[in-house]
């Protein structure tokens, strides 16, 4: 029988320290007046700060390329995991409905939940938010009351999406 080793290199140690400190940095940045309410920006700046700190530490420690590779992969994995959790608690629709019901402290009908969603922004906020994102990235164009795929980028992205669904064996919902 072989063995499982838990020995760490300096690069891994520093990566683990940065990973452990990340939520504290994120919590502190979220309270800065200039970043208040900008959840994506808070996460991006925390990630940059953590990575710069880690790079500065491993340069001082003169780590080997192999150790840098492993430390970087650990750091990237942790950022991806934090991003999933961050997206869920800051943008999760299902959790948003639960919080709406929790803060109301009384039974709410479907229309009331829809109206109170996101502290009163309502469901139209979701549509506005999606549309702004799609138009901003050049995937769709707005013509009065109509939305259309842009001829190249929008159509190509929709076709690639359909191909990926097929490759992964996921069902299409738009039919």
């Amino acid at each position, binding site marked *: 029988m072989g063995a499982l080793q838990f020995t760490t290199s300096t690069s891994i140690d520093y990566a683990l320290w940065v990973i452990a400190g990340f939520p504290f940095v994120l919590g502190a940045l979220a309270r800065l007046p200039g970043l208040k309410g900008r959840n994506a920006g808070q996460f991006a700046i925390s990630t940059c700060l953590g990575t710069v700190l880690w790079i500065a530490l491993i340069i001082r420690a003169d780590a080997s390329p192999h150790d840098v590779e492993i430390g970087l992969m650990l750091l990237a994995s942790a950022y991806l995991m934090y991003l999933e959790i961050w997206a869920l608690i800051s943008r999760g*629709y299902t959790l948003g409905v639960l919080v709406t019901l929790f803060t109301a402290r009384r039974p709410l009908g479907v229309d009331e939940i829809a109206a109170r969603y996101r502290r009163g*922004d309502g469901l139209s906020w979701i549509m506005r938010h999606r549309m702004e994102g799609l138009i901003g990235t050049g995937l769709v164009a707005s013509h009065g009351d109509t939305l259309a795929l842009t001829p190249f980028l929008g159509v190509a992205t929709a076709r690639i999406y359909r191909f990926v669904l097929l490759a992964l064996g996921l069902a299409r919902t738009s039919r």
Partner: protein
Amino acid sequence: MTSAMISGAAAFAIYLVATLIFLRLMRDKSAAVVVTIAIVAYFGGLFIPVLKGVTLNFWEYTAVFSCFTLTFLMAFGAIYKSVSLRMLDFLLDHPNHAASKHSLMTRYVAEESFEHRLDVILQSRFAARFPDGFVLTRKGRAVARAVTCLHALFAIERIG
């Protein structure tokens, strides 16, 4: 490459193949399939080589496996859940690839984003439906309380 890195990469490759097969066999449980197989592949890739006499470094194995797997899961989650991408797919089927904002709002925001979530909440027993409306169950209150605490910790004012 060390044996831990090779094991991590091999476990991810097996995970990817198994996921692509099981997603086709269990189409109604896609999210559960990708997560369950990831857990099985992680521990399988870690302990099977050790049982066969190989010495592995835990951190190297975890770094390689988790980096590949979390990148795949992030992309999979974006494709699986994305309402925006489904809107693009919907538009692709329409003449001139265009549709009214009202039809998109009704189908993808009111039905898929909202009514579907209410169904999920009821099925997961986070809330119960009574004649006067939806009420959180004890489980639902616990989750909502935990999320509210996280919002306070990270100064998140609005969710959604």
